[in-house]
């Protein structure tokens, strides 16, 4: 008998028994008893109606199982599909667990499970576990399934050290990660490890398929390579041992691999292939076309590879998307730097800016503006703000054109229409979102340099943070220059002293007689910022008992806490924390709450359970 793998895809389950029969009919007497009359619903774990246990009650299966069990080295493996694997009889190797007993000499095997592990990046998870574990270990056969992550280790000492790691690692949401350890049979890739001469042959075959000029390895239809077939070596890449052997050879012989072609290998899962990330991280081109990948979740397991080109056509997963553009964007979410998908060039990834918004500094060549103009503007800004902050603002008179315009705005927040913290700017606020009166709209637009400078003089005293400035030069002709400054400043006097504001100032300027510029349009937008320290303290859950801390509050404060809790839906303690951090300014606390909530920075446990 030979190694045979009757893997059933979801689509193929209807044909499962007939396949079984077909493959085994000629070579294995067992299958004569395997009927093809059994109900398919009983085979489908996904159906949910019948459990896996019921399968064993099917008379035909039961009989086959009994027959099978009497043969050594045969196994029924059920993992959402029925797979009946009949192997050639082989002597158990050292370290391999026998059927009934565990061989303790070289170390028993243990299965390590992280429930909910699917949400963590493999590399991060393994690095975290390794760094917390007192005993070094080698993880084997890492895979994701059913929301959990799992791998195997050998040796009781490693296993018990890993048990100690449970609930020690914190994830990004400050949840402790549990780790379950249980005994296990030998993992497949170890148990079915290819023999040295098989490995040697595999290496020779792969060498033939390697193109050194392109650093490309072509493993299309690898199972049916004439060399391998001729020597009776069955390389089914779905199987962990075959994939592990292949990757091992890649790591040892083609360490700088750029392109890997796995077309037409009937791959339905990529757990094994995900080890490629460690074995050959240089791979930039991956071809997975014409396989059996059912869902983009499989492809997601490869996301730590920095791919530039990917082929996925001919996989069932394409049908899970209503159209080409949702398919493309889902793939791009896995691989943000992807340039080509299925042979099509994707538009250049300007959107990198979304994933990691970076602020381009003025000195970077983001726009073709002459150095001279750039330095002119930067010099202007420096002088402007130095005068504005430390000098007499009336001197700014010179900088404005006679007929210049200036206006000021602050945001309009429909949830909380009156942010009291920006009250100094209320009277000049020309935000057209809430200012509808055309008369006022004209009045509040300061016109002529005299009016402008007058209004600038009465604005609060400030201290601008030059290091925070980001300048966009966004339009220029010979006669006009447009630039925007984004930055921060601090209020240095009055009720809001110490508050940090964010601002955006847009200037339109024309050249002046000497080497200077005149401002013809000036628009200033001021927004409040949230001090960073509030954010981090907010994230740490407070574990004091509720009533004890509430008792230390004044009556008024207690009322605020109750009201805040009702309005925000957060538990009392969290509401109290939020209010405390805002110095019991209810409005401000509300703003902070809304901002953090929309950014998803409030942990779920902060909210009251809905009964």
């Amino acid at each position: 008998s030979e190694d045979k793998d009757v893997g059933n895809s979801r689509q193929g389950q209807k044909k499962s028994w007939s396949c079984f029969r077909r493959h085994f009919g000629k070579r294995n007497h067992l299958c004569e008893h395997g009927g093809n009359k059994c109900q398919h619903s009983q085979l489908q774990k996904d159906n949910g109606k019948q459990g896996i246990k019921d399968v064993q009650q099917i008379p035909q299966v039961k009989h086959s199982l009994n027959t099978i069990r009497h043969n050594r080295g045969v196994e029924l493996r059920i993992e959402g599909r029925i797979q009946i694997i009949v192997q050639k009889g082989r002597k158990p190797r050292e370290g391999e667990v026998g059927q009934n007993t565990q061989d303790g000499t070289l170390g028993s095997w243990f299965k390590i499970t992280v429930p909910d592990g699917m949400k963590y990046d493999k590399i991060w998870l393994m690095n975290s576990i390794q760094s917390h574990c007192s005993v070094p270990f080698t993880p084997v056969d890492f895979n994701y399934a059913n929301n959990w992550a799992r791998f195997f280790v050998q040796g009781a000492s490693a296993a018990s050290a890993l048990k100690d790691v449970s609930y020690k690692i914190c994830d990004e949401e400050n949840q402790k990660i549990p780790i379950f350890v249980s005994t296990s049979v030998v993992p497949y890739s170890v148990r079915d490890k290819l023999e040295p001469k098989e490995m040697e042959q595999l290496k020779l075959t792969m060498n033939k398929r390697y193109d050194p000029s392109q650093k490309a390895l072509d493993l299309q239809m690898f199972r049916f390579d004439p060399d391998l077939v001729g020597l009776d070596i069955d390389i089914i890449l779905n199987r962990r041992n075959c994939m592990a052997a292949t990757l091992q050879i890649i790591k040892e012989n083609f360490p700088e691999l750029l392109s890997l072609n796995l077309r037409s290998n009937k791959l339905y899962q990529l757990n094994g292939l995900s080890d490629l990330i460690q074995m050959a991280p240089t791979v930039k081109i991956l071809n997975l076309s014409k396989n059996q990948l059912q869902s983009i979740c499989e492809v997601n397991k490869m996301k730590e590879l920095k791919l530039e080109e990917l082929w996925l056509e001919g996989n069932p997963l394409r049908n899970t998307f209503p159209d080409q553009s949702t398919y493309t964007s889902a793939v791009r979410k896995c691989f943000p730097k992807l340039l080509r998908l299925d042979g099509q060039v994707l538009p250049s990834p300007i959107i990198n800016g979304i994933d990691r918004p970076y602020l381009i500094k003025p000195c970077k060549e983001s726009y073709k503006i002459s150095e001279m103009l750039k330095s002119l503007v930067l010099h202007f800004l420096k002088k402007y703000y130095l005068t504005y902050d430390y000098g007499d603002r009336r001197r700014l008179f010179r900088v404005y054109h006679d007929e210049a315009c200036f206006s000021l705005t602050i945001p309009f927040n429909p949830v909380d229409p009156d942010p009291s913290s920006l009250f100094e700017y209320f009277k000049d606020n020309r935000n057209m979102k809430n200012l509808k009166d055309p008369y006022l709209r004209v009045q509040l637009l300061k016109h002529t340099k005299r009016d402008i400078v007058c209004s600038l003089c009465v604005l609060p005293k400030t201290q601008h943070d030059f290091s925070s400035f980001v300048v966009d030069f966004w339009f220029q002709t010979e006669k006009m220059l447009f630039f925007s400054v984004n930055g921060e400043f601090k209020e240095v006097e009055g009720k809001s002293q110490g508050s940090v504001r964010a601002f955006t100032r847009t200037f339109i300027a024309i050249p002046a007689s000497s080497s200077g510029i005149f401002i013809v349009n000036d628009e200033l937008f001021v927004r409040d910022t949230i001090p960073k320290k509030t954010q981090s303290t907010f994230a740490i859950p407070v574990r004091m008992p509720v009533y004890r801390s509430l008792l230390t509050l004044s009556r008024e404060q207690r009322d605020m806490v109750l009201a805040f809790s009702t309005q925000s839906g957060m538990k009392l303690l969290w509401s109290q924390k939020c209010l405390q951090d805002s110095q019991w300014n209810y409005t401000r606390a509300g703003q902070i709450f809304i901002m953090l909530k929309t950014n998803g920075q409030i942990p779920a446990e902060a909210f009251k359970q809905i009964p």
Partner: protein
Amino acid sequence: MRPFRRDWFQGDRGMHQGRSDRFHEEPQTSHTCGGSRTRENVVTPPLTAQAASSSPMAMAVDFKTYVDQACRAAEEFVNIYYDTMDKRRRALPRLYLDKATLIWNGNVVTGLDALANFFDVLPSSEFQVNMLDCQPVHEQATQAQTTVLVVTSGTVKFDGNKQHFFNQNFLLTAQSTPNNTVWKIASDCFRFQDWASS
């Protein structure tokens, strides 16, 4: 330098105190005055004949008229722009001039083809604008091409990404015909501004 008439502004002050008729003709909402809202165009009633010309007499046109016109155009424009951006992204490039430039978080995109490409790739968006301001741009800067500066701010959530604060500035230029004025974007500068939450 052009002769500058300050007096009209002083004079206006007196008039405004009495809330002259001029204001009462104009209702206070943005969807007014036959500013038609074709789907992808920002169109307003024609500019006054004097404003449309570039003769020195254009200076005599009321500053207030410029401001009103700018406000009207800006409000119409912003409504259409973000609606198109969120719901009809494909149509967005039509709001731009042929040679328009977009600076998106520092990245430069010039020309309609590049813009179309860019907006195609940009994930779907949900914009919430909570600030809008506009100013008529001084003629000296624009060589008598009527231009409006529009400034907006708010929050935006792109699909697959967290929410960001954004600031955006536009230069709108008017293309006048006898029947109406079509406003198009000559330049667009967009930036995330996440001082607190990055």
